[in-house]
């Protein structure tokens, strides 16, 4: 399914007109993208390192996951909104960028993974879940979000 038409539309949309015309606005939006990256990273790491029994082992893993979830969603939301804004400024360039698609694939999968698999499973008592499942879940989560971040940064270099 070719999404070129969507990128062509985005490239000339009102959003793009704003993001392309005002470099200052673009810069400010990018700051929010960066700052929420820090928050997202923190929530992912604290949660996953707890599942791997590396960090905060004196606190129950249910409590750690419960507390980091909300702020993860806040950070992800800000990143997606700011990401769409920034993408509109360079839509056509992104369409032809391999790293952008790698990022989108991992982001898409990451969102599905977190909200359709990880979160529902972790609602159950963690003692009743196979510890290897928890470890795999944590490793996969760290891997996905690292890949999203790294491929995202690499867009700028490619």
């Amino acid at each position, binding site marked *: 399914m070719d999404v070129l038409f969507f990128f062509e539309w985005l490239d000339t949309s009102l959003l793009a007109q704003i993001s392309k015309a005002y470099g200052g606005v673009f810069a400010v939006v990018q700051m929010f993208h960066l700052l929420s990256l820090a928050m997202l990273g923190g929530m992912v790491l604290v949660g996953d390192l707890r599942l791997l029994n590396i960090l905060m082992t004196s606190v129950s893993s249910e409590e750690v996951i419960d507390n980091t979830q909300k702020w993860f969603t806040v950070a992800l939301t800000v990143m997606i909104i700011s990401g769409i804004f920034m993408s509109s400024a360079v839509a056509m360039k992104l369409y032809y960028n391999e790293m952008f698609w*790698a990022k989108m694939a991992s982001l898409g*999968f990451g969102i599905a*993974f977190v909200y359709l*698999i*990880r979160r*529902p*499973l972790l609602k*159950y008592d963690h003692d*009743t*879940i*196979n510890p*290897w*499942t928890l470890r*795999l*879940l944590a*490793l*996969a989560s760290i*891997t*996905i979000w690292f*890949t999203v971040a790294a491929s995202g940064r690499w867009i700028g270099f490619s």
Partner: protein
Amino acid sequence: MSKSTLEKVAMVSSSLVLVAAIWFWSLQVGDVLETLKLAYG
């Protein structure tokens, strides 16, 4: 989805993620090595 199904799905999807990541990053490393060979000989 029942808990045990969810657990199986989680195991399989997590494993797939890790395999995919190893594949993706190996490709990237390969590309880098190739480019460095071209650039520096």
